[in-house]
């Protein structure tokens, strides 16, 4: 009996590994093609297409990036700034709000919490939001247009962080500090924040990836190419290429060579994802945790 079982177990192990290897390959192959293509010679790519192992190797695309560093480096800087400022302010605002909400005797906390939950159920839609940010707050073509709309705060994160404060920070500690004469802000920065690093790291990491990857806000609020983020730069190159290929007949005066070639665009995509690919393996467990926490509620 035992022999049969272990044979079965072995077969199961084998099947599991085969499927997982297949899925892993499937997940990685597009990235491999992207990287390989970015290192291939541009003329060869047009003639023969991309290959997983470039037949004619070339660094032209990356040299082009160095030449155009004025624009691309700028976009990189915009992305970095937006990610840093956005993530830090987001964490600060979320935890301040959640700390207030975690005070059990705060008058009105149920109503406020309910109003925050309601934002997860109903939204006014894009048109009114666009008009508010564009016509009233004039965020168009400012760096705040990339940072503020939609990304800074969402009800779901508030729920997560508030729950953590309520469940994982013993009230005795803050009471003790209070008796020693510490004010709420002191307690918040000296006790609550340091004790909450696990949740803040998880939330912050998710937030950072969201900011790094965001192109939506750029699409709506940025037309000035000085404020393009990496993602928007990629998106704009996409649009230009589509426009050129759709209107090729009417565009005879345009110098097509001035546009980045296909391999150059891929190289820009490679450097846009490089930080995520390099840092992700070290933070994988936080991502997994963030996702499972999300599944519990929300």
């Amino acid at each position, binding site marked *: 009996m035992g022999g049969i*079982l272990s044979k*079965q*177990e072995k077969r199961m192990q084998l099947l*599991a590994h085969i*499927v*997982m290897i297949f*899925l*892993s390959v499937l*997940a*990685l192959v*597009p990235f491999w*093609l*992207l990287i390989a293509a970015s290192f291939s010679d541009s003329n060869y790519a047009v003639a*023969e*297409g*991309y290959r997983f192992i470039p037949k004619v190797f070339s660094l032209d695309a990356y040299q082009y990036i160095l030449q155009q560093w004025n624009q691309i480096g700028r976009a990189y800087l915009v992305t970095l700034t937006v990610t840093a400022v956005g993530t830090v302010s987001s964490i600060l*605002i*979320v935890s*301040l709000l959640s*700390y*207030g909400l975690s*005070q059990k005797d*705060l008058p009105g906390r149920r109503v*406020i919490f309910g*109003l925050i*939950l309601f934002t*997860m*159920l*109903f*939204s*006014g*839609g*894009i*048109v*009114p939001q*666009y*008009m*508010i940010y564009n016509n009233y707050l004039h965020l168009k073509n400012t760096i705040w247009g990339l940072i503020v709309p939609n990304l*800074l*705060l969402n009800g779901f994160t508030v729920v997560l962080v508030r729950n953590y404060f309520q469940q994982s920070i013993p009230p005795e500690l803050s009471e*003790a500090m209070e008796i020693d004469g510490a004010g*709420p*802000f002191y307690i918040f920065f000296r006790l609550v924040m340091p004790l909450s690093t696990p949740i803040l790291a998880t939330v912050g990491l998710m937030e950072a990836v969201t900011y790094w*990857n965001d*192109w939506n806000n750029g*699409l*709506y609020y940025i037309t000035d190419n000085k404020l393009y983020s990496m*993602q928007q730069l*990629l998106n704009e190159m996409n*649009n230009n290429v589509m426009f050129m290929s759709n209107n090729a007949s009417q565009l005879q005066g345009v110098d097509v060579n001035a546009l980045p070639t296909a391999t150059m665009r*891929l190289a820009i*995509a490679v450097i846009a*994802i490089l930080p995520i690919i390099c840092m*992700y*393996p070290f933070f994988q467990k936080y991502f*997994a945790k963030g*996702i*499972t926490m999300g*599944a519990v509620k*929300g």
Partner: protein
Amino acid sequence: MTHTKTGKTDPVPYKKKIRWKRMVPFYLMMTPGLLYFLINNYLPMAGITVAFRKVNYKLGLFKSPWCGFDNFEFLFASGQLGTMIRNTILYNLVFIILGTTLAITVAILLNEVRSKIASRFYQTIILLPYLMSMVVVSYLVYAFLSGETGYINKAVLPALGLKPISFYQEKAYWPFILVFVNQWKGIGFSMIIYLAAIVGISNDFYEAARVDGASRWQQIRCITLPSLKPTVITMFILSVSKMFYSDFGLFYQVPKNSGILYPVTQTIDTYVYNALMNQNNPGMSAAAGFIQAIVGCVLVVAANALIRKISREDAIF
């Protein structure tokens, strides 16, 4: 400690006043966040009435003249409403059914992998696409599908002796491409959710089953799958509540907003964007957004009521 605290408390008549004073710093702390929700969420909610106005950017959100149901009539007359609602719902249905099945299968198989290192390794790699922006995903897809340089057109099809395909001009392929890309990007995410549920199943059940001589397959069928039922139901109902919403990036970026493909790629979200930003038609965009918000909200409430009925503690509110 409790004693000192009660000892410090003032007599009852003053208690309320002092409590309020103590609370001031907390309200101060909450102010930035609450202000944000007011601007980012509540002002737009008030502005949803714009769907019934003739939008004039100079007059703004709250002063543009009323126009009754004109925007909705134009939207209905454009004949696009049916297509975008159909696409939104059908894609969502396929994503839900296929996504759930695949994610559970993969989670069960991954749970079978004994080696912790291997399991972590697979998990890490399968989740990687989830961390990519849709712009980058559209570059990856383009590297395969492009007419001039794409791997499929330049390597695969010629090797099979087939003619090249202009993917970005042919509607027929896109339902498959979009479903594939959606699963490719999302499976790591949903797999992790189900894996967490599987890991949470008590080992005693499996021990008992093993003693009774149950095979691995029988254990999966009779223990794992039934235990996943609550998670599946919650996830299912959550997705149903998002039935009127679509992943804007998937339907906008991956087909590169190609107009020829609209019949199979236009969803409510891409329409709202295109009408507002490209066709300068904020009225119709607002009308579509209004329908989406109302139906969306009804669906969330209904879904929540349903969860409440099935299992109270899984309800969202």
